[in-house]
């Protein structure tokens, strides 16, 4: 143990100015692109709104109040719980969860398949998985709209083969949003799972089979636990951006499938033009995600200890 600690670097405690200069770019990037915007949002969320965008530098809790309470059109009624935004949050979480589930159901077998091909073929398959990402997300989401619409290729295909009698109206439903999110973030599921499956030692599966486990048990008790970290990483990478997405719900979901992302987008780009409220909603979303990750991390740590 001692030896390990010592190997951390020459002269623990010795001041080495070069070390600090080398780490500076990293700190600049993190500070400028990550901490500063979040701090800005945090500050904005406690300011007073200026109509049609912008803020007045005056402390106010109005944005958070607006999120939670309904005080009537003129703000003079006794406060009631405001369900509108909570509903949007719940819907967003459900949609993001469904998208994650879809990505997992398709992404795991895909990643498994790719990881078990000969090495030369793996590179080609991975390339194919990432090809759609060379196209802008907006274009991809719009193209999804064309695929799914009532007279689109999907419906025409199903009609032509007599699978359905009349076109399915998928567009403007929550399913359309889920499909859009699924399509947007699938590679984020495939790639981390691929990385773990590729490292998975298939003799473990053989050993389990040899010890009388059937195929299903091998998958459930050996393979899934061992590649679990990849699945969790993929799920987080899909779930978090899905939660804040606005292109898919805006373009594919119609008015009824409003999600947090759309709500925030409205406050900055749209008609609502309420920057403090947009910032407050962002902060609430951020805290929810961080809390979820924290709870998860603690649980993992506890499992590790046992």
């Amino acid at each position, binding site marked *: 143990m001692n030896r390990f600690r010592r190997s951390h670097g020459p002269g623990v405690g010795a001041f080495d100015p070069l070390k600090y200069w080398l780490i500076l770019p990293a700190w600049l990037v993190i500070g400028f692109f990550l901490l500063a915007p979040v701090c800005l949002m945090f500050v904005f969320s406690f300011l007073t709104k200026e109509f049609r965008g912008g803020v007045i530098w005056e402390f106010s809790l109005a944005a958070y109040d607006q999120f939670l309470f309904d005080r009537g059109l003129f703000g003079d009624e006794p406060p009631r719980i405001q369900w509108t935004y909570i509903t949007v949050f719940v819907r967003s979480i459900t949609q993001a969860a469904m998208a994650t589930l879809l990505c997992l159901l398709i992404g795991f077998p895909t990643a498994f398949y790719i990881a078990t091909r000969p090495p030369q073929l793996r590179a080609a398959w991975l390339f194919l998985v990432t090809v759609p990402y060379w196209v802008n997300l907006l274009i991809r989401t719009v193209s999804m709209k064309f695929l799914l619409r009532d007279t689109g290729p999907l419906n025409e295909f199903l009609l032509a083969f007599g699978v359905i009698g009349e076109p399915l109206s998928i567009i403007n439903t929550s399913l359309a949003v889920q499909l859009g999110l699924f399509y947007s973030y699938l590679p984020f599921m495939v790639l981390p799972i691929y990385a773990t499956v590729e490292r998975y030692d298939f003799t473990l599966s053989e050993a*389990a089979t040899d010890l*009388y*486990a059937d195929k299903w048990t091998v998958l459930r008790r050996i393979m899934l636990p061992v590649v679990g970290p990849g699945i969790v990483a993929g799920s987080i990478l899909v779930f978090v951006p899905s939660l804040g997405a606005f292109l898919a719900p805006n373009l594919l979901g119609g008015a009824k499938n409003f999600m947090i992302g759309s709500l925030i987008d409205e406050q900055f780009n749209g008609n609502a033009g309420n920057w403090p409220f947009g910032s407050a909603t962002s902060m609430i979303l951020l805290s929810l995600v961080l809390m979820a990750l924290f709870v998860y991390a603690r649980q993992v740590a506890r499992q590790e200890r046992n």
Partner: protein
Amino acid sequence: MTQKTGPIAVEIRHVVKQFGSFTAIRDAHLSIYDNEFFTLLGPSGCGKTTLLRLIAGFEATTEGEILLFGKDLRNLPPNRRPVNTVFQNYALFPHMTVAENIGFGIRMKGVPEAKRLDTVDRMLKLVRLTEHAHKRPAQLSGGQQQRAALVRAIAPSPKVLLLDEPLSALDLKLRQAMRVELKQLQQETGITFIFVTHDQEEALAMSDRIAVMSDGVIQQVGSAREIYEHPRNRIVANFIGETNLLEAVVRFRSDNSSLLDIEEGFQVECRDRVSAKVGERGQVLIRPEKIGISAANVGRDGLECKLVRSIYLGTDTQFELKTRKGLTLIARHQNSSEAGEGVPIGSTVLATFAPDAIRWLSDNE
């Protein structure tokens, strides 16, 4: 020669295994007896691991059949065969504790918990891992992992235990200790062991019988002594131990004693049954430890050679001799014996051969 007989545990009949156009096993026949420590020995790529995987059920035979106590294993998936495997890299489940690993097989067999824990305890004790029961495999040393993998495969009391080079990842000292332990375990449990290795020393030390494989062919099956002393062909002779392989011409032949020319004008006696006729050629084998070295002036009947090189090997010294006509012979003697000691390099010596030193290869091609 102590040869086990009795019920046949594994019978391999006409087994052929092809991977695409590559033939890994050609027409193998083998009977492995119950309670036997049987070794498949051969260089890497000889098909020994494939044969093991066929018995385990990880691969399907292209032709032929494998019987386990008389029962055809065909169509029986690995999880329904009463055989267990110890893998070369151990394949311990990294997310389970040692105890959970050991209990996995009997758990899958549906053994009730109380009995299961009992068995796991017994297994842990058997290989002295009790205090490591709740560690993860990654926290164990190589030897401990090895022992955990071993009892994990033994816990479900398989009828046959398959071991795929289980000692190859250990260092020499540990490997030697594990040899003894493995052999002991086999005798205590009475389970038939089929052990795959490319290490001839390992094979000779542990096995009741050995099958030497090469190029997908089982070259010879026999006890360690039989294989070492009476290799059937040059492949076996070359693979097991050091050898001098010499061309010989038959000069006189009878059933229990023949005279062979191993070099023009030098004849040795051979007591094996010689398959070639008088005047024909064939191959003989002489083990290095059976070549005596004495000073040239002793006047004994020997082959005059020049001592080219001697290599000190700790317990032994190896001598390289060259005859007048350029034939190279390797001799090897324990350093406690006096043979060859103090003979200067370049001097002339006599190489002598006891009658039982000359082995006629029965498969003379």
